[in-house]
């Protein structure tokens, strides 16, 4: 018989500490859907996505009921659409976004990612047209998410793409200004984008992946915080150990769900992404874990050190719990989606500069940050370049999801609702990087030796 305390601990994690499976994401390759006739290609895409994912939502719900563990999102990621769009270069790729949106609605998933382009070394056929169409695609569809990879440790940073993406981020916000600039919340700019990430908005199905695959993202910042709260006087070695043990348990649950979903859908299991993904719900915050470690507020000096410890311990604990770990894996620090981050930004404890430092040690990057609506495109580009440089030099993924809050100023608030939360508008440094951004070209790939 199972141990009573173990059973009660699991129940408590789910009932009181917001433990959940954040997402089951089905990756679907669209490479066989390319066609020089864009309408034919769209039909093939719609049919393939609907065929492969027809049972995804139902299976997720069945597992949720049987195992008693909430599964919040069921999602789809597809091959970067720029590769499919390359076959019909004269047509507006927005048609693909509409086809994907229809398919996502048909099968009932929460989001579909992959309206993407990988341009870290340069623009291939289809890439530029797709990037150009992102604002329109995100404004006209509901469920499609987009991402663009602008740099990598092996290739360097494509500064032409950086300059372009600054404008695109702004346009996404402008075209959806009457809807909380939500277009920009569905666009992620990456350096070192992972090919098997199940989390939105940056999920896409990489070219090295099989035809179809199941990836699962776990969550549970509340569980880690609760575990730390039981050891208020532990030293930091013990704190790291508690995080590891907790991450192990959380990830085991992800592994179980991933295997079960893979078995029921007859689709190979890809990876478990062992991330601490916060939500705006009270008790589901990464910032509160850092505060539990002994900071008065997230953003205080010491935050980067605490986050480094947390991120590393989550990985160490999770790696042994799963047969395949991948995706972003670590601690997310999205400002608007984390109750503790929102409070810290409101009271002035947390600034963009501190967040940038934190991204050097967290699993992702500058995420869900609302910036003033009058921020020029070149400043956005420069923020992208800074963040990509951190990722490139440290051989890690960095992602940027900024929301220029059109018509709003620092101190005002942005309300996205649901899992996207709300955020105070955070001010940016106004000195101009225009000349640097207008130069174009590429930042060469960094040296991999002489590390200091």
């Amino acid at each position, binding site marked *: 018989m199972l141990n009573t305390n173990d059973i009660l601990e699991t129940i408590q994690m789910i009932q009181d500490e917001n433990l959940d499976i954040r997402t089951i994401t089905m990756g679907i390759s669209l490479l066989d859907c390319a066609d020089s006739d864009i309408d034919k290609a769209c039909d093939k895409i719609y049919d393939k996505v609907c065929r492969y994912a027809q049972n995804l939502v139902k299976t997720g719900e069945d597992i949720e009921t049987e195992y*008693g563990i909430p599964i919040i999102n069921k999602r789809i990621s597809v091959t970067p659409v720029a590769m499919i769009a390359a076959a019909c270069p004269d047509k507006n790729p927005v048609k693909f976004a509409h086809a994907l949106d229809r398919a996502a609605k048909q099968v009932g998933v929460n989001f579909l990612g992959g309206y993407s382009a990988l341009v870290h070394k340069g623009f291939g056929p289809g890439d530029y047209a797709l990037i150009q169409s992102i604002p329109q695609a995100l404004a006209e569809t509901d469920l499609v998410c987009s991402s663009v990879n602008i740099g990598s440790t092996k290739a360097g940073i494509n500064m032409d793409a950086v300059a372009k993406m600054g404008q695109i981020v702004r346009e996404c916000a402008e075209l959806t200004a009457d809807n909380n600039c939500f277009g920009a919340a569905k666009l992620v700019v990456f350096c070192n984008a992972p090919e098997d990430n199940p989390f939105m908005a940056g999920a896409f199905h990489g070219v090295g992946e099989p035809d179809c695959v199941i990836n699962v993202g776990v969550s549970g910042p509340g569980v880690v915080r609760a575990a730390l709260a039981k050891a208020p006087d532990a030293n930091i070695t013990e704190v790291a150990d508690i995080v590891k043990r907790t991450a192990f348990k959380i990830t085991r649950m992800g592994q179980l769900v991933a295997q079960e979903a893979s078995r029921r859908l007859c689709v190979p299991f890809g990876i478990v992404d062992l991330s601490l993904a916060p939500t705006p719900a009270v008790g589901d915050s990464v910032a509160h874990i850092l505060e539990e470690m002994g900071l008065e507020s997230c953003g205080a000096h010491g935050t980067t050190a605490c986050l480094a410890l947390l991120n590393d311990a989550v990985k160490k604990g999770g790696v042994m719990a799963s047969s395949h770990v991948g995706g972003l894996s670590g601690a997310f620090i999205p400002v608007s989606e984390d109750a503790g981050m929102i409070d810290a930004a409101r009271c002035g404890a947390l600034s963009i500069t501190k967040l940038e430092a934190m991204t050097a040690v967290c699993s992702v990057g500058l995420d869900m940050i609302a910036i003033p609506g009058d921020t020029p495109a070149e400043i956005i580009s420069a923020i992208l370049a800074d963040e990509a440089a951190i990722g490139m030099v440290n051989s890690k993924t960095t992602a940027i999801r900024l929301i220029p809050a059109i018509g709003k100023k620092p101190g005002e608030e942005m309300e996205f609702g649901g899992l996207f939360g709300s955020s105070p508008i955070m001010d940016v440094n106004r000195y101009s990087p225009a000349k640097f951004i207008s130069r174009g070209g590429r930042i060469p790939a960094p040296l991999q030796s002489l590390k200091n």
Partner: protein
Amino acid sequence: MRAVITVIGKDTVGILAGVSNICVNRKVNIIEVTQSIMQDMFAMIMMVDISGSDVPFTTLSEDLREFGEKSALSVHIMHEDIFNSMHRI
């Protein structure tokens, strides 16, 4: 398949009888029961075999949830694998 039913809440008359009754009606075999009182909270854990059950898992889970709501208890049924995978290596 085996599942774990947990009942947590204030101790009252008829909790065990109520849950067992649902099990009997749905042809669910009770394998083992443990119960304890922690402070004034009642916690009962029941290991059951549902392979002979004549209704889908969702119906059983719904029955138990309704019983829980009526009696102001938190009642859950979960596949035993969730506990095995989390607490055993």
